[in-house]
């Protein structure tokens, strides 16, 4: 999903949005590597959130909101990779939050589904759901196109090239960490490059 700019509508959430709200457990019978179930996961993205308009409109599989703006500890709770995948499958491309739960952040990077961007200050009050915004990954900024306000993001650092590549395996292949084609000897190739971890 390599791109410098991400533009789209914003969906605003609060603190501690946990993985049960992102994808409720009753949908964990869906397996993300099965294409139709991947799509289905997208249709349920964030359906467990209390008191918010639906992220994915009823009867649809895609969201009108490419960007989520949230508070602290986004993605806390379980290790279910279904969580970043559901948001990504629905068409979400970036989350801008004050902080992340460790496993969720790592899963965003490993899957390449979503850019988890951090902010030093709380931006929840700078947006309302439906605002148009643009993220500039090179400049590490987000602009509210309704108000014109430009706000700083923490640089993604080592995580960026992994997400740009489309996730851990594609990145590992491109950088020679693992063999470029599936091969049994892959396990002998001890990875040497430093990539991002959590």
């Amino acid at each position, binding site marked *: 999903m390599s791109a410098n700019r991400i533009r789209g509508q914003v969906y605003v959430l609060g603190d*501690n949005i946990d993985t*049960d709200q992102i994808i409720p457990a009753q949908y*964990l*019978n869906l397996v993300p590597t099965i294409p139709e179930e991947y799509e289905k996961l997208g249709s349920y993205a964030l359906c467990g959130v209390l008191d918010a308009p639906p992220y994915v409109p009823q009867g649809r599989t895609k969201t009108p909101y490419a960007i989520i703006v949230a508070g*602290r500890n986004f993605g806390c709770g*379980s290790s279910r990779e279904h969580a970043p995948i559901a948001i990504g499958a629905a068409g979400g491309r970036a989350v801008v939050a004050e902080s992340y*739960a460790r*496993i969720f952040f790592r899963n965003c990077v490993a*899957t390449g589904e979503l850019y988890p961007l951090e902010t030093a200050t709380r931006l929840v009050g700078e947006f309302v759901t439906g605002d148009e915004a643009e993220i500039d990954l090179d400049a590490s900024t987000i602009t509210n196109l309704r108000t014109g306000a430009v706000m700083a993001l923490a640089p993604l650092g080592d995580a960026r090239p992994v997400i740009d590549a489309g996730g851990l395996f594609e990145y590992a292949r491109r950088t020679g960490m693992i063999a470029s084609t*599936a091969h049994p000897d892959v396990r002998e190739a001890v990875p040497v490059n430093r990539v991002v971890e959590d």
Partner: protein
Amino acid sequence: MAMTMTEKILARASGKAAVRPGENVWANVDTLMTHDVCGPGTIGIFKREFGAAAKVWDRDKVVIIPDHYIFTADDKCHRNVAILRQFAREQDLPHYYDVGTPRYKGVCHIALAQEGHCRPGEVLFGTDSHTCTAGAFNQFATGIGNTDAAFILGTGKLLVKVPPTMRFVFEGEFPPYLMAKDVILHLIGEIGVDGGTYKAMEFAGEAIERLEMEERMTLCNMVIEGGGKNGIIEADERTFAYVRARTGKSFEAVAPDADAKHVFYKRWDARTIEPTVARPHSPDKRATARSLADVAITRAYIGSCTGGKLTDFASAARVLRGRKVAVQTFLVPATTEIARGIGTETLEGKTLLSIFEEAGCTVSLDASCAACLGGPADTFGRINGPEVCISTTNRNFPGRMGAKEGQIYLASPYTVAASAVRGRITDPREFLA
């Protein structure tokens, strides 16, 4: 260089003399665990990335424990277990605990320990956030996603950042009405649900040494609710006795250096901790049980990797013996071994099972995660409406146990049992003289 237990394990696993917090190291994995919710996706990625005929890096180091959605009519859940079964067969995996056979165990974190997969000084990754439970056995254990798990399946390694350590010390002895669940809820209330993010949480002190293994597991189990990467406790004779009874494999425990550095350090007098409850909808919404005496409940639940172990049921039985519950009270053991224990363990001449039945509890002996995470609509104990539930589980997020209209209070088995008897939140000291 002085190191903590977590640093020592990661140094050994990455072939280094020493590591320091913040360093990224490639750790050799001793055990990878997955289950029916994340296993099929992990297997899908493994095959896509390493090839349909690829073999796992070490058959003896892969453990697959179906446990989440077992006792349900949902077709996809059965399909998912069939994917695990097929994979275990084609890879000839010795540690697959199949549904519907005598090998079936139940909740993975407890089964890992009971089947001898939790060994001091080793590295365990699991596709489940409560993998941190195994820190009770002096193991570095943490949760990962499917993609990382698939990477391990193919390579046996994972890049990990060495976490800094927070040290929590409890002096003296916990009072008899207190359980490890109260202690961890107290701590989470103190540091917040993100207070331990990226960090190792180390528990020490005389009060911790006095805890039996299942109680230590409860403590480490919930470090993830404080955001922690792993929990860890020093191994002692109790640890060795438990582990040696369950595995013949050799292992080497680690002890912390006296001058190891911590990012957080706090001591408590163990006697000062009170029965503690987390209010909806977050595990850090701390309150004492006695301060919530006006909260009426509509049901109670005892189960899960946190509060569904034999010690948890034995504790509940102490409160429930000779009494009746005032609200519907669901009990479900974490594993089949515990299910058997409920039928054989006695208290004053009565089995735990008969105590629960006479108290009017609704008992299922189908060991699994059950309603801890809601699950399919036909799951035992699932919240399907605006219930107010007090539970021995670990998460009270909106919708965690089913319907998002539900409200969940987290508490120890003593407090849950006492509350079930009164129909409102109750400090167990009222029953435990």
